């Protein structure tokens, strides 16, 4: 019985090329995302009240607790400080409807971290965006509660309301674009206010945490696919601007689709990924049974990421075609 003892003093890590150097460590980048999510969080408190802060806190707390618990059971290093669990919790909290049940929130967060991330081996190994897995689970488990929307504080009349998308889908009513821009509409916590998402998203692109190609290709995609139907029949189909501002499109474009782990590696792959998401979103919104499809579109395209990476792999220098 011989044992191999590693030299404890020098730890040389050998990996094959290419080596990409990033300005940000994973930890720093994660905290930047948390910072970028703050405007959306503030807007949700302004429009839907202080209870929403509780929803997001419960979501973050149960995400962090679940992650540490699973790491502890599997006897791995507990990595709360890298912020990824906090981000998943925050993202999940911000895509839930207002005044959501706290127990359900915690459940969604547990599913997001447990089934969305840790089952695959933790950060960096997950196939699907964990926060969206959590939301998809909640959507399937509690369909009624997940589609109960309240009117934002600045609107006057009744308590319950429809989101612009369900109003369009079921009653063919187009919401006011300026209200959609500032966020004075029914919808999920962080998704309603376009301006606050843009602040956070552009901040992330400028400091280089998020690659600009995915959001830009998603916008272009929605302009092309949504615009096509709008040009065909402007009375029946909404304009691309509506598509962009409604539902979770902006939030998805800046914070969900751009997740480092679950998006393609190559520039060409990112364009394909973004266009694919837009196509599926437009198809679900216009012809599907559901009013909103950003969540399913991103999860759907997540599944194709390994395939996209494989086919957009750059040629090795000198390799024959």
């Amino acid at each position, binding site marked *: *019985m011989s044992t191999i003892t590693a030299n404890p003093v020098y730890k040389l890590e050998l990996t094959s090329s290419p080596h990409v150097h990033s300005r940000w460590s994973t930890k720093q980048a994660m905290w930047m995302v948390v910072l970028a999510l703050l405007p959306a969080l503030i807007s949700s408190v302004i429009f839907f009240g202080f209870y929403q802060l509780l929803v997001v806190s419960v979501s973050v707390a149960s995400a962090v607790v679940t992650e540490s618990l699973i790491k502890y059971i599997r006897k791995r290093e507990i990595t709360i400080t890298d912020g990824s669990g906090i981000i998943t919790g925050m993202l999940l909290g911000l895509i839930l409807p207002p005044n959501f*049940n706290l127990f*359900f929130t915690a459940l969604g967060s547990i599913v997001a971290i447990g*089934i969305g991330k840790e*089952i695959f081996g933790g950060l960096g190994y997950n196939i699907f965006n964990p926060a969206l897995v959590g939301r998809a*689970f909640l959507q*399937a*488990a*509690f*369909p009624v*509660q997940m589609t109960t929307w309240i009117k934002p504080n600045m609107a006057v009349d009744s308590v319950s309301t429809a989101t612009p998308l369900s109003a369009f889908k079921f009653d063919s009513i187009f919401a006011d674009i300026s209200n959609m821009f500032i966020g004075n509409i029914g919808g999920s916590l962080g998704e309603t206010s376009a301006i606050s998402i843009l602040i956070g998203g552009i901040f992330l692109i400028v400091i280089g945490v998020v690659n600009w190609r995915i959001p830009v290709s998603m916008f272009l995609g929605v302009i092309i696919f949504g615009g096509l139907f709008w040009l065909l029949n402007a009375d029946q189909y909404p304009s691309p601007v509506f598509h962009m501002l409604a539902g979770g499109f902006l939030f998805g474009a800046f914070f969900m689709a751009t997740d480092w782990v679950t998006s393609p590696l190559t520039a060409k792959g990112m364009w394909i990924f973004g266009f694919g998401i837009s196509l599926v979103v437009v198809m679900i919104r216009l012809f599907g049974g559901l009013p909103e499809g950003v969540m399913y579109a991103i999860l759907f395209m997540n599944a194709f990421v390994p395939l996209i990476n494989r086919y957009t792999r750059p040629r090795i220098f000198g390799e024959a075609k």
Partner: protein
Amino acid sequence: MKNKVTIIKEYTKGIWQSNPVFKQILGMCPTLAVTVSAINGIAMALATTFVLVFSSFIISSVRKLIPTQVRIASYIVVIATFVTIVDLVMKAQFPELSKSLGPYIPLIVVNCIILGRQEAFSSKNTPLRSVVDALGMGSGFLIALFMLGSIRELLGSRTILGFQLLPDFYEPWLVMILPAGAFLTLGLMLAFFNNLSLHKKKSDNDKLIAKYLKTKTAADFVIEENK
């Protein structure tokens, strides 16, 4: 005799060591589709066991008469006979259950557990052993389907076998009685059971190593003495 395995072992292997659902991952279609409630799972497993036991008996009795080239077709004829019996009996005696299981009773004909056992076991063993093996596999299938059905029924509609176990304020998770819930539950159960057998293998290995080391030092000692 080539058969060193005891009759009891022949039975118990179907329950744990090569459980059709958890170890062989066979019969996924009924496993995932009918386990909306515990009672459905039990009915499905009993029907499958009935077909499995009788077709195993018949096929192992005539195993030397069936030409190899047409064996699959012959098995299917035997299996289909018993499936028809089950289907008609269930329609006559338990119309409700038959309705809720729907096409999955006739589909037992193509259940891979049954064909797999005929191919792997009944065609090579005596009728007695084949029946015991079929009973073991049936029991394993029953346990798996009952567990899966209970978990899904409990979380998806608060009850097990129709008895309400969770309080009214518990909001049923609709996803558990949808197909997605079947995949999630089965996946987590498989992970759990694989983990269990992994631990068992590891501790068995450790025991073996300890035993080896013990005998080795004893042998070394003897060699040392003889020098």
